């Protein structure tokens, strides 16, 4: 029996194992929405297409599955752009489906027409304009395969309205044949052997872990490597939850707002083992003084990441899971040398302990005003180990990265590469849709929260009990901090002068609002929020001009940190 394009699309999604999609209807996707009523796929109606894409992104980050979002043509499609770019920068597997005007009208400036393929070309891993309904099944199959394989990323399918209506015999292909796309999964054995030799010879090794470790699900192998060699581990923002922060070998985060000891360790190391990380400028600071004494081993599935920003002594292209497994095995083949290396690096570990003792992560506590770091510490104390924390972008994001001790993979969802304000709330929504029973908390600032606060409606409508922490300083705090430090305290347009009553805002949507204005109210508010069913906003009136420290000023070396006094 023949099926219509929109039926074929939904059937393909079902066969790909998609259970929940996020979206917003409109004229050119109305057929898909009509057929959706007869499909087992659950649809969540966001209040903005950008939020739908962020929600699919949060769903993907929390589960490891491909996130799916759908939007109509024109403005619906352009609203997805920030969401797509966010996913692209952090290599998140997603399929975005946009409606398009009927094929004969394409290029005519038709109502709600936009060349979304052209607009999103630099921010998608791949994209398809479907011109023939007979190709739709193959295209959807390929899109999912491309999104989740190799270095994952968003794939866009632009589906004209007439193709949705046209009929074809439905046959879902079993396999994908793409002659131009064959990611390298298996790491070269000789390179791995060389890496093992370098690791055994190193006296000041540091493992530097990026988002690839999360994407490839390798925390186990990573732990094996670190513990076998007793090598200290630092993570990027994206690698954050892949190595438990409370582990004695953990150095926490490195980079612009990294720990003193992580940045000192990297600067003084003689071997840097980069695991699924891409040497982003927020990580390296001034390239010329980044890890100046270190040989660099770079393990990554994407050859374009290697030697992009820094020189690399030993590249290994492959899936981290495969490479780390082989590497640990290779090292285990030399037990005497491993023991010798572990003994020889004892001095290095004690040097790191000295740095940790001299400058631990700290802030000046207060009994009168709420310190944001205190809120984060309390939040950690009162939430479960498997609680999923999302953030927006700015000071609250860095405080969360610095002061929340993540211990389980895929529990920290944050826009690292693009730095998208307004990401955290819809991402939390997506994560909660995937895990209705787990605690999901969006840590936000008053600025970021207002970028997608309309999603409160979605949370309430679908009974998604996301808890929202707003660290309210009535400032766009991170920019204000830069203005304070580098622009002589000229706070140009960073003061959010209109105070918002976030408690009332929550209530307007049918959610619960709580507020703490003094430090002794903090714990009670968090406890109450966690006990309250349904979405809750916790507003904390925090110290207004608190800064994120340590800080490496832009363009400075990692060892030139401004420390907390």
């Amino acid at each position, binding site marked *: 029996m023949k099926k219509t394009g929109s039926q074929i699309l939904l059937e393909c999604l079902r066969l790909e194992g998609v259970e929940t999609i996020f979206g917003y209807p409109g004229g050119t996707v109305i057929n898909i929405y009509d057929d959706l009523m007869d499909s087992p796929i659950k649809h969540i109606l966001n209040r903005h297409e950008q939020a739908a894409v962020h929600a699919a992104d949060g769903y993907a980050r929390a589960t490891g599955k491909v996130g799916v979002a759908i939007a109509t043509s024109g403005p619906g499609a352009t609203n997805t752009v920030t969401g797509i770019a966010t996913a692209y920068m952090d290599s998140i597997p997603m399929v975005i489906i946009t409606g398009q005007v009927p094929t004969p009208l394409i290029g005519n400036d038709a109502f709600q027409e936009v060349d979304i393929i052209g607009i999103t*070309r*630099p921010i998608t891993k*791949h994209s398809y*304009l479907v011109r023939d309904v007979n190709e739709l099944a193959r295209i959807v199959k390929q899109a999912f395969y491309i999104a989740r394989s190799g270095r994952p990323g968003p794939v866009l399918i632009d589906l004209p309205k007439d193709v949705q209506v046209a009929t074809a015999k439905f046959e879902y292909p079993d396999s994908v044949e*793409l002659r131009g796309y064959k990611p390298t999964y298996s790491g070269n054995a000789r390179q791995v052997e060389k890496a093992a030799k370098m690791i055994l010879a190193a006296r000041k090794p540091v493992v530097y872990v990026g988002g690839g470790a999360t994407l490839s699900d390798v925390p186990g192998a990573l732990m094996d490597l670190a513990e076998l060699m007793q090598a200290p581990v630092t993570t990027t923002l994206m690698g954050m939850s892949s190595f438990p922060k409370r582990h004695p070998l953990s150095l926490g985060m490195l980079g612009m707002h990294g720990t003193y000891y992580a940045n000192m360790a990297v600067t003084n190391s003689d071997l840097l083992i980069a695991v699924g990380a891409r040497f982003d400028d927020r990580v390296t600071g001034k390239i010329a003084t980044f890890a100046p004494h270190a040989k660099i081993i770079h393990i990554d599935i*994407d050859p*374009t990441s290697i030697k*992009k920003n820094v020189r690399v002594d030993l590249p290994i292209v492959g899936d981290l899971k495969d490479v780390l497994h082989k590497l640990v095995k290779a090292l285990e083949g030399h037990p005497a040398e491993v023991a010798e290396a572990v003994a020889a690096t004892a001095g290095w570990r004690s040097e790191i302990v000295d740095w940790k003792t001299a400058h631990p992560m700290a802030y000046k506590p207060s009994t009168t005003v709420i310190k944001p770091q205190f809120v984060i510490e309390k939040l950690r104390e009162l939430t479960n180990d498997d609680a999923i924390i999302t953030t927006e972008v700015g000071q609250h994001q860095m405080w969360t990265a610095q002061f929340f001790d993540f211990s389980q993979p895929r529990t920290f969802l944050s826009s690292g590469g693009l730095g998208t304000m307004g990401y955290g709330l819809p991402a939390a929504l997506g994560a909660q849709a995937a895990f209705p029973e787990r605690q999901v908390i969006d840590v936000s600032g008053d600025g970021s929260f207002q970028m997608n606060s309309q999603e409160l409606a979605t949370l309430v409508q679908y009974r998604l009990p996301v808890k929202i922490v707003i660290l309210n300083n009535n400032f766009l705090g991170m920019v204000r901090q830069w203005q304070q430090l580098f622009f002589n305290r000229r706070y140009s347009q960073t003061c959010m002068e209109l105070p918002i009553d976030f408690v009332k805002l929550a209530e307007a949507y049918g959610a619960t609002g709580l507020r703490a204005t003094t430090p002794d109210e903090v714990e009670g508010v968090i406890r109450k929020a966690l006990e309250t069913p349904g979405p809750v906003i916790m507003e904390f009136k925090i110290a207004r001009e608190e800064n994120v420290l340590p800080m490496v000023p832009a363009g400075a070396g990692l060892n030139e940190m401004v420390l907390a006094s």
Partner: protein
Amino acid sequence: MKHTISVVVENEFGVLTRVAGLFSGRGFNIESLTVAPTLDPSLSRMTLVTSGDDQILEQITKQLNKLIDTIKVIDFTGQDYVERELCLIKVTAEEETRAEVLRIVDIFRAKVVDVTPRSYTVEITGAPAKVDAFVELLRPMGIKELVRSGPVVLGRGSKGWKGTE
């Protein structure tokens, strides 16, 4: 430094913009570009000439490889290759210059492909440097219009790349 790169891609719509986008997105100019189907009509072969910092070119080459539609990328820099370009030139040819144009055409083994009482249109094929020299000699005669194809390139030697095996 100048780089000549061959890119074999799926012969589909939208592929050219993906390739070109990698250059424009990094502020790189493509000096010349030719595209046509290969022996296998489902594939197209592009020959690109660009110049820039070697490290950025390495990055672009890797990015080209990363495109889903790219089958093969060959950077001919530092390799032995044959390079040919086609150029058509409409040159003024009136009484006093008519014979001189023909003499130059003859020396370069070029060909006159269109004649009017006031002009010749000539065709020359060769390495870009030869085309440059030819154009320079004709320039004083008065060039009315000129079009160059940009070079196409094949590696020297008996080994060939026919398709996706």
